[in-house]
């Protein structure tokens, strides 16, 4: 009986902790997830709600590492910029309906725009911005990779007889070519 009680006591905190983790909306989304995916999920959820005539009030997105990068003198830029911008537009576009989500029959619906066309335009604008941001990231990586290639091949020049350096230079050159082609293709 003592053993059974101890077993039960041992399992209880684990179960409680798990349920608390499930209840916390941030625990599941934050774990190993990037901010862009989170914003996308939020935007998709918003669209679904609007499609069901549930009005979602505007909100200010929280600043996150994904929004960093902007006007830097040098260095990498996170690709989530476009996602962040797109989400800002999602939130800042004024909603024609003033009624909150819980309003029912009294909420005016006559002047409400058709959800499909405006939502799809918003989605395609967001997709375009994401593609542009991803292309920018590809080109930023091309700069980094080709810079590394210069350094590595510079070392290889000083160590002409060392196969490790030559192989490294050869690999870096290939990477730089691939990156350059990828940047040209998406630009």
């Amino acid at each position, binding site marked *: 009986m003592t*053993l059974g009680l*101890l077993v039960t006591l*041992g399992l209880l905190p684990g179960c409680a902790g*798990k349920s608390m983790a499930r209840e916390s909306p941030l625990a599941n989304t934050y774990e190993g997830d990037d901010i862009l995916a989170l914003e996308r999920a939020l935007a998709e959820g918003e669209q679904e709600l609007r499609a069901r005539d549930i009005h979602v009030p505007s909100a200010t997105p929280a600043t996150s*590492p994904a929004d*960093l990068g*902007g006007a830097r003198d040098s260095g990498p830029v996170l690709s989530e910029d476009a996602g962040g911008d797109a989400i800002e537009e999602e939130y800042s576009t004024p909603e024609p309906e003033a009624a909150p989500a819980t309003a029912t029959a009294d909420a005016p619906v006559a002047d409400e725009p058709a959800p499909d066309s405006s939502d799809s335009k918003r989605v395609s604008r967001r997709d375009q911005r994401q593609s542009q941001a991803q292309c920018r990231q590809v080109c930023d990586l*091309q700069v980094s990779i080709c810079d*590394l290639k210069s350094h590595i091949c510079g070392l290889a020049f000083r160590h002409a007889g060392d196969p490790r350096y030559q192989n*490294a230079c050869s690999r870096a050159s290939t990477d730089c070519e691939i990156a350059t082609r990828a940047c040209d293709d998406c630009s």
Partner: protein
Amino acid sequence: MNVQADATLARRARGRGRTLPSWLTLTLGVLLGAVLMFVGLARAGRIAPAPQPEVVVSLAQTLEVEHRRVDLLVERGELAGAISVLESLRGLDWPTREVGGDEVVILRHDVYGRLLRLRLDNPEIDAKPGDALLATVEEALGGDAEEIRTNAFTARLVAIRGELLEKQGRDDDALTAYERALDMNRALLQQAIAGAGGAP
């Protein structure tokens, strides 16, 4: 007398059937309970607490302001001021990875990478010896650089480490660092290409 003998025999029979003394059973029960509790707590993330997003957001907002200050200083050509701002951020009480997750480490790498890049590009400003800059890189990378997800800021920092090692004539170590940075950038490029797909 027969009754007493029977009672004694019965007691002896019960003794033969008992496999463990009571104190041992209790100890095993306590141990088993403790192990199960530990497993339960660990699986619920209570032993290693889950990252706190509010810590990340707060840190990111603080750093965004500082980065913008640095942007302005750089634009105005006040590089010493820009370096000074970034140096002051080294003294921040940086949250650990356990508290803020990979993001806080990446943010730290971003700040240090930017500082070291400015120093390398402008060695005449507040000149520091190579050893001191290398120590700054090691301070930035810490013990968790290998554990976080691949990202451009860590890759930049590792590449900068390679540059510093090369300046010190440590070519083998420099090559190792460059190759590591290249591996990271290659992985990021593959992800980016997969994501860019049919970009215009």
